[in-house]
């Protein structure tokens, strides 16, 4: 049944330890799971790790377009699970990185079409071939969430500093296996608004969620520009947000990383924009 997954990888391989399967989840939609998956995966691959990104959002495929790989996708997750294509046919190599791969979601299918057991076996197979398997979880807590979590051993919670996102993140943490210790990325923080007391701070968010803080990503216009172009910011050496993603990757890889700086920048476009929009409260 599983032969399709067990084909030898591109080279005869030595016995390697299984990679880590990490699900990126949030409960609420639109908080930046897919962007986070793309950037953290890109940053991990830039460090030399072998990384595969699995889009588990069946029916609402987006990871391919965020990575700029939409034209290269021929087969998808369900093709592999249903043995209509081999894993090697379905894995799309990233344009920029030799060691980053994407397994796209099916766009015209439903989340209920995924068999949890098969999904688990697939992630297991991917772990044998990659150092990191990052699973981009769909929003919600139904079948799609369960399938995305099934094969993982670790979770990253993406949460924006909004009441709805924090509440949903709290709920999702409660649904994860008891022995997991999910880590938190606070996304779209606007330090200037926090300084003015108009936005929940990282401490506010994590005072409620109480998770190990993996990183903080500021709400920077460049993130939108990068997504427009399909070029993850993680590779932009000049971008502060890119640096924040790289710091997250380093932390995942086990490096000691200083705590993220969440103070408002004193100059620069981000600050100006922040004060422009900040007046709305």
């Amino acid at each position, binding site marked *: 049944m599983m032969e399709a997954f067990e084909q030898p990888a591109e080279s005869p391989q030595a016995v390697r330890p299984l990679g880590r399967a990490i699900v990126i989840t949030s409960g609420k939609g639109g908080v930046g799971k897919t962007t986070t998956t793309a950037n953290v995966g890109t940053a991990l691959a830039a460090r030399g790790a072998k990384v595969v990104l699995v889009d588990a959002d069946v029916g609402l495929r987006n990871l391919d377009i965020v990575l700029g790989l939409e034209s290269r996708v021929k087969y998808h997750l369900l093709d592999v699970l249903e043995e209509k294509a081999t894993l090697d046919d379905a894995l799309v190599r990233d344009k920029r990185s030799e060691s980053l791969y994407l397994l796209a979601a099916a766009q015209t299918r439903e989340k209920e079409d995924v068999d949890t057991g098969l999904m688990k076996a697939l992630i297991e197979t991917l772990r044998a071939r990659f150092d990191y398997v990052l699973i981009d979880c769909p929003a919600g807590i139904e079948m799609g969430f369960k399938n995305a979590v099934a094969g993982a051993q670790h979770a990253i919670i993406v949460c924006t500093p909004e009441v709805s996102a924090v509440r949903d993140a709290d709920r999702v943490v*409660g649904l994860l296996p008891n022995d997991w210790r999910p880590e938190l990325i606070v996304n779209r923080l606007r330090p200037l608004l926090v300084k003015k*007391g*108009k936005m929940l701070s990282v401490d506010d968010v994590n005072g409620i969620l109480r998770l190990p803080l993996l990183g903080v990503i500021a709400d920077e216009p460049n993130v939108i520009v990068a997504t427009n172009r399909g070029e993850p910011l993680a590779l932009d050496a000049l971008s502060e947000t890119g640096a924040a993603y790289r710091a997250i990757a380093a932390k995942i890889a086990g490096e000691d990383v200083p705590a993220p700086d969440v103070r408002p920048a004193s100059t620069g476009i981000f600050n100006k924009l922040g004060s422009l929009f900040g007046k709305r409260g």
Partner: protein
Amino acid sequence: MIDFFNKFFRPAPPSGATAKERLRLVLLSDHLSLAPDVVESLKRDLLAVISRYVEIDPAQADVTFERRDHDVAMLASIPITGVRRPGYDESPEPTPTPPPAPRSVRYDASPVAESASRGVAIAEKTQAPPDPVSLELPMTPDPLLSPAVASESTSTEVEPKSTATSAAHRRRRRRRKANAAAKRSAQAQSGPPLNASAQA
């Protein structure tokens, strides 16, 4: 018109603080509604403690949680059917039986006795369930750790609202704590928390 005026001239609290407080409250109720087993064991312990002092009708007892403007309150409605005289009546129930109360614990039966007899009287007259002892406890961040349970006949605010940050405990953590709290209360047997709040 005044509202309009206020809107412009009264400094509102920063919306970030409002968000934080709203979240704290909503997560408190979320967690309580998500953990029926914890609420059930709280109810069991609560009834056990109260039945050491008065005879109650556990079947009619009702413990609920209510969202209020600034906190979440636990409301306990527990019909009292009779009075125990401490030192004479031993609890017939298989509830954790209190050892002789520590010396420092005093017990004043009169308010409870009053309410109990009143409750019975009303029950006879109206056929309604007896006037229950009503407890109203505002929930502090970690409600299930709060040990104080007042057994007075009136609505009793036991603890002032704490300013501590909200506890977004996950279910397992809560369960562990609740178990510990249950153990503690079983060991502490009765009085101290009860008495502390009754005298306060």
